[in-house]
């Protein structure tokens, strides 16, 4: 599987290059970072528990870090642990060369806090609270929250069913000029 400290095989490397948006250096760098996460643990583990992933500096200050881990995790136990391939998927989705469709798809899943396939009022409220902060004085008042959510739905809910589904979300994102810029992550640190 290549998660040991040894080098990645050449065919594995080219396969990863084909299946993700990462370049060769980025994949090798990711392998190094992933091995560092594993280094203190048992070498035979194939996946890194969520707490370790959350200790990465790029994810530490991100308010959506737990959701990111849950979305990209393919483990059956739903505990947010990431295998190396999950990790590569994560980096690929957030890299500069990922398409808008991939980014918007994963962003939708990250924002969908209750995993039901649509962004409804509860999801949006949790999203806004994640963005503004957890403490009392950094939240919006309930009145403002209501106004904000109704504004968002007015802008993005096309079929007026009170929720934002994936195609509506992608439609809004395609006209949002800041999105691609903001959703590009790290992998530049040498």
């Amino acid at each position, binding site marked *: 599987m290549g998660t040991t400290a040894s080098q990645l095989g050449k065919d594995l490397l080219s*396969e990863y290059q084909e*299946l*993700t948006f990462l*370049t060769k250096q980025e994949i090798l760098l990711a392998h190094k970072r992933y091995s560092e996460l594993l280094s203190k643990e048992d070498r035979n583990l194939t996946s890194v528990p969520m707490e370790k992933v959350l200790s990465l*500096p790029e994810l*530490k*200050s*991100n308010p*959506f870090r737990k959701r990111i881990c849950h979305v990209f995790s*393919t483990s059956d136990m*739903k505990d947010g642990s990431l295998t190396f*391939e*999950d990790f*590569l*998927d994560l980096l690929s*989705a*957030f890299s500069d060369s990922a398409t808008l*469709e*991939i980014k918007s*798809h994963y*962003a939708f899943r990250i924002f969908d806090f209750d995993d*039901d*396939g*649509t962004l*409804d*009022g*509860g999801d949006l409220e949790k*999203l*806004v609270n994640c*963005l*503004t*902060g957890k403490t009392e004085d950094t939240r*919006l008042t309930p009145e*403002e929250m209501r106004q*904000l959510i109704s504004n*968002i739905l007015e*802008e*993005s809910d*096309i*079929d*007026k*069913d*009170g*929720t934002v*589904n*994936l*195609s509506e*979300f992608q439609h809004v*994102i395609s*006209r*949002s*000029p*800041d*999105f691609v*810029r*903001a*959703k*590009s*992550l*790290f992998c530049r640190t040498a």
Partner: protein
Amino acid sequence: MERDSVFHNDRLGAPRNPLLDQLPSYQSLLYRRKPSASGSNKRRGSSRTRLGSSSSGKWGQTTLARQHEEKLRTQTLQRPVRELPKPMAEKRRDKDQRLEQAKDLSSWSQWKQSTRRTLRRLKEDGFEMLSNLELWRGDIHVIEGMFGTGILSYFSFLRFLVLLNFIMFLLMFGFVMLPIITAPHASGNTTFNHVDGFECSNYPSTSRRGLVVFHQHITDLLSGAGFLEQTYLFYGYYKVETIHFPKFTYNLPLAYLLVTIAYLFLSLIWIVKRSATGFKRKLVQDEDRFQSFCNKIFAGWDFCIVNDSAARLKRSSLLYELKTDLEEERIKQKIADRTRKEKCRIYVIRLILNLFVIAVLAACFYSIYIATNFSQKAQMTKVNFILDLIYEYLPSIVITLANFITPLIFSLIIQFEDYSPAFEIRFTLMRCVFMRLTSICVLLVSLWGQITSCQEGNCVCGYNHILYPCWESRVGQEMYKLMIFDFIIIGAVTVFVEFPRKLIVDYCDCGLAKWWGQQEFAIPQNVLEIVYGQTICWIGTFYCPLLPAICTIKYFIIFYIKKVTLVNNCRPATRPFRASSSNFFFLAVLLIGLALACVPVTIGIAQISCSQACGPFVNYTTSWEVLPRTVSQLPAGARTFLLAISSEAFAVSLFVITCLAMFYVIALAGAHKRVINQLREQLVMDGRDKRFLIQKLCQAQRTCAIISTGAGSQSHSSDRVSPSYRSNSGVFLIQPPPDSATHV
């Protein structure tokens, strides 16, 4: 917010409505993978499996669903595997499956596919190599990580200007200086402009003779006079008429004029191309609110932020932005509710304040005019070193002072005009932009006034040849001085204001420090600074051909100065500047600068008679005259063609055709807008129809079930089945009263 309980029934413990899962539109949500307990969901996870006839047998596998599956499969086949939003294991399976299918194809298509793949990989490697060559890539990434994308856009704008100036310098160098330099080496024969004996062509040498004191060299360096005047730096040095190379003759005046026009065009095209995406979005978005809320919420978090304090700041700035926007909405509501009396009062106040603003501007322009005249007169007499320098730089000093005071006045005034907060910011900014860029034009106009005014009233040579034997060099010197002074001011402000401020705020605990606070990197003011410098460059390049090179070096150094001050002295702005709209704002201001720069250049080329004592246009009345004279020397065919293009008939017909095209496009846009609105309404109605039908169907199913379980009693079908999505009477909440009748 009320949720439509038709869909979300899990909380109630009732099973999910399996009808919804079988809808074709839900098939596209491939990702919804629940644990294998719920069979239908797992089936949906891989698009290849069929729909089993799980729940209501009537539905089962519909042809529609199958067709949709096929369509998805062919769609995914055409895209590269990596663009599928699936985890790695599934992508690998897809890839293997495609390879399997590819084996069935003929060898020709196999070869085609493999070449396509290798070409794509080559292209990606090539792009990666090119992007590594980008200037300042690492620095800008660091800035992005620390301060986010708003400030990043400022620095990439600066990088764009460095490149633009460098290309301008290459143009000038390649077409004007290179032929002169290489003429002796390429056995070219240069003919110079010598019109001797003529009064107007008397050009006294300004180089200093005898023992030169050291500080005079510094004065010369800073003011472009003395030893610098007769160098490649200024227009006056290019006294070449034509260069006869062995194979062809090179018409230098024509080249000089055409390069000027070319660099203005090149700047225009490059800026427009760069702003095209942002502008298109602003045009297309005819919605009132420009999707600002969705943009802020969905794209709000900057994933580039890596440290905690920046994250905290980002949070507070997002909160501030949201609150401001919501506040703005409330204010707009308030404005719409204004009574007529209030409106009159506000308009009167605004009129008075605008007149006041115009008065302030007029006062500033007049002081610039006075300063220029005084400076020109004072340059004739030399007093001592320091005073001379001050007189030389007097216009620049006045301009800088005016640009320092007027923004403060404007931001004070705008508070009384009672606009919405966003409009206030934009309007103040526009006023500052106008002030800054027009002050250069005022300087030039007052200079030209001096140049074309003679003692006897009517100038013999068309300009004042006694005081200004080579007036273009003089104008070039003024532009040179403006540029140098601008650079000195930027450096001085950084060293003498920003660093001490940081020291005071850090180490001193007095009230002054608390009131002043830490420096914020104010993006609009910084952008205005560099656009001001760029406008000077555009205007001055005709008179001072090496100005783009100086500008390149200046912006290069400014990048590092700004980076150092940003990293050491600044904290991120509490009022965030949105990256997307800021790109458009930068380029819009730059375009205004370009437009304002074209006016003096055009007047200088076409109106004012060029000096007879220096420069390439000695034998022409105005610089523009080169073109008609060259055209008249062209062969007959080309000449008639060019004359036809510049005739009135052609211009009028071109204008009419452009107007027609514009009307057509506007009508098309209007038609599209109407169609979009109709489609939106249709979507809403279709959504309601779908929910209504599902409700009815589920009701029918349940009444069937009730009847078949032998309930026997007749129940009234609820007439309250309203298609409204806000209705509380979700299907599973309707408990038909036991004694009402049902219509089956």
